């Protein structure tokens, strides 16, 4: 585990932002930190970044208790983010990199590299107020990753990007992951969680209610559902002894009992109907999210 948060409690007056939250982020994972608005995700991310301290509980980072010198090992792109509007882009990036303990020269080298990579070299000498929102977002992305941290924390990294630039950023995140960086990633866009996360943790009402590998969670939440698409909807209905969970046009989603043999079920349907497709229906993260939040 690269990061372990144990029994984190953070209280603001009478309000519990986090109440015994537990999170374990494995090394080199892309960890999706999910939860409804106000669940405590940002509070947890701020605690990991040592912006605020927890009232109780502890954070273990890379087998050590989290402390000030870990700041250079963590990169953070907050949801509420911005830049100094009147400051020159290059100067600003150098300043932020130096605040992360990078030397001036190294910061300059890495900035050259990243500005080149994201194709924004022409922005070096501009002031931030002259940039479009998307450009400014790219620069914020660079300042978050410039010091090559072990752990990167992204809070809604794609907000403010058009689809093309969002995919540029997504690919960069995947590449960072490939090169060994661990990533904590918070978003409300479930399809991007599905696409890039290896692990998820779900926070609701200040507590962690679900955590683990995405595949494992999907298996746990698998409710023996199958998706059947047939040519003749009416015929299927008449020959069908299984209860359809929902159907639209010729597409049926059927959930069967665990003790029913899957092969027999398949043969049963195929023999009586003209089937276009038949497949196992995995639960979506969105479905899991809604179910877990409603139950917990």
């Amino acid at each position: 585990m690269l990061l372990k948060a144990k029994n984190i409690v953070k209280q603001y007056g009478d309000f519990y932002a986090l109440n015994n939250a537990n999170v374990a982020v494995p090394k080199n994972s892309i960890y999706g930190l999910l939860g409804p608005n106000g669940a405590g995700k940002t509070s947890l991310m701020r605690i990991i970044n040592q912006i605020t301290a927890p009232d109780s509980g502890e954070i273990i980072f890379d087998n050590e208790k989290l402390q000030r010198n870990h700041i250079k090992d963590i990169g953070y792109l907050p949801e509420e983010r911005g830049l100094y509007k009147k400051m020159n882009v290059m100067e600003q990036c150098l300043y932020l990199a130096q605040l992360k303990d990078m030397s001036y020269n190294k910061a300059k080298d890495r900035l050259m590299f990243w500005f080149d990579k994201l194709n924004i070299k022409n922005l070096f000498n501009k002031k931030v107020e002259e940039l479009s929102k998307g450009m400014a977002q790219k620069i914020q992305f660079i300042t978050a990753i410039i010091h090559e941290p072990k752990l990167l924390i992204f809070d809604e990294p794609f907000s403010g990007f058009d689809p093309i630039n969002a995919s540029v950023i997504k690919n960069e995140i995947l590449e960072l992951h490939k090169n060994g960086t661990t990533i904590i990633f918070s978003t409300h866009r479930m399809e991007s969680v599905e696409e890039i996360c290896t692990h998820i943790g779900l926070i609701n009402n200040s507590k962690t209610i679900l955590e683990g590998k995405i595949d494992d969670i999907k298996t746990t939440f698998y409710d023996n559902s199958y998706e059947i698409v047939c040519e003749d909807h009416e015929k299927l209905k008449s020959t069908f002894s299984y209860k359809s969970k929902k159907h639209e046009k010729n597409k049926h989603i059927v959930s069967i009992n665990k003790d029913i043999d899957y092969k027999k079920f398949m043969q049963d349907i195929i023999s009586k109907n003209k089937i276009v497709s038949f497949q196992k229906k995995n639960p979506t993260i969105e479905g899991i999210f809604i179910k877990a939040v409603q139950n917990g």
Partner: protein
Amino acid sequence: MDKIWLIIKREYLIRIRKKSFIVMTLLGPLLMLLVMFLPIYLTNQTQTERTIAISEQDFDLFSKLENTDYINFVVIPNSIFSDLKIKFDNELYYALLEKKEDEIILSSSKQVSLSVSNEIKSQIEKKVEQEKLIKLGIDISLLENAKTNVIISNQIISKDGTGQKSKTELSMAIGFISGLLIYIFIFMYGTMVMRSIIEEKTNRIVEVIISSVKPFKLMMGKIIGVSLIGLTQFILWICLTSLLFFVSQAYFVNITEVESTQEIEMQSMILEGLMYLNNINLVEILLAFLFYFLGGYLMYGSLFAAVGSAVDAEADSQQFILPVTVPLILSFILIQPIMENPDSSLAFWMSIFPLTSPIIMMVRIPFGVSDWELLVSILVLVGSFILSTKIAAKIYRTGILMYGKKINYKELWKWLRYKG
């Protein structure tokens, strides 16, 4: 390099390159110069010779007037006088003087200068008084002899028993100027700190920065960076002003050549002042000024920082700014009464109370303050700015992450009790 230095460096460099800083730095000395030389220039203006015409029929009036350095009185025929009254020629005469029953009328094509009409008034009054005295049979020479002029020279008895001459006017000037400077400095740079914090908050860059440095360091770096800007500006002001002063003084002396009596008087006054300046402990005043200047700014700066962190826009800051600035404005208003009575108990307590001491103590010091009072005041101020930065830091670290919420005093009180 400690990160606080990075922050101080940024805050300093970003401001020193600003156009407004450069403009203010250049404009300050020019304004100072204007204040210093405008009176001299204006008195020089009045030195031009002026001729005032009186008609024959008012010869009685003419006989009461004597020519001065810059006013000449001439008598002209009645007909010319009445012609001039219709069509005034300001090439020839500055004004016309006549007597109508009990009234004396001074007429001209433009507003007659106050110094001219005052001169005429006092000359006539003196003459009429003398005439009345003579009528009453009083010897004027006796009266002249009876006039006395008392000069009071103030002395302060210092501890080693030597009497030192003191000059109240000079003490007042030094006290007033240093109090005023501290007041301006705290206000200008305190609000600068506040604005910069509001900017960081509305820009949303603050969360990125405090993921790298502790909020306390960010706040202190900002306060210190801005104070260095203030010091730089003041040092530049002093250098530029003295430079300009000497250059323009040489220039002024050259063009006027013949120094008027007033100018000589002024110069001797300055010389005299410089002499007394030696008797006042200049080093003590300078050190005290630096201390109260920085101490007062650090304390108010942290309070302004706390206010900045609690609001989303400058417009919302009013309710919190008011209690911070009231003691500041109050001490500014009380400078005058305290100068008149620098040892009153009001003056004493206000020079101990940390929110008013930076200004009030500076006003009192040139008049002489006992060592223990100074020490108590310094200790209280040091203690207070440590306390105020601590309180401000607590409000600051919660406030900067609080967006879009209307904050009241109850809320601030809650923030003070949150754990780090």
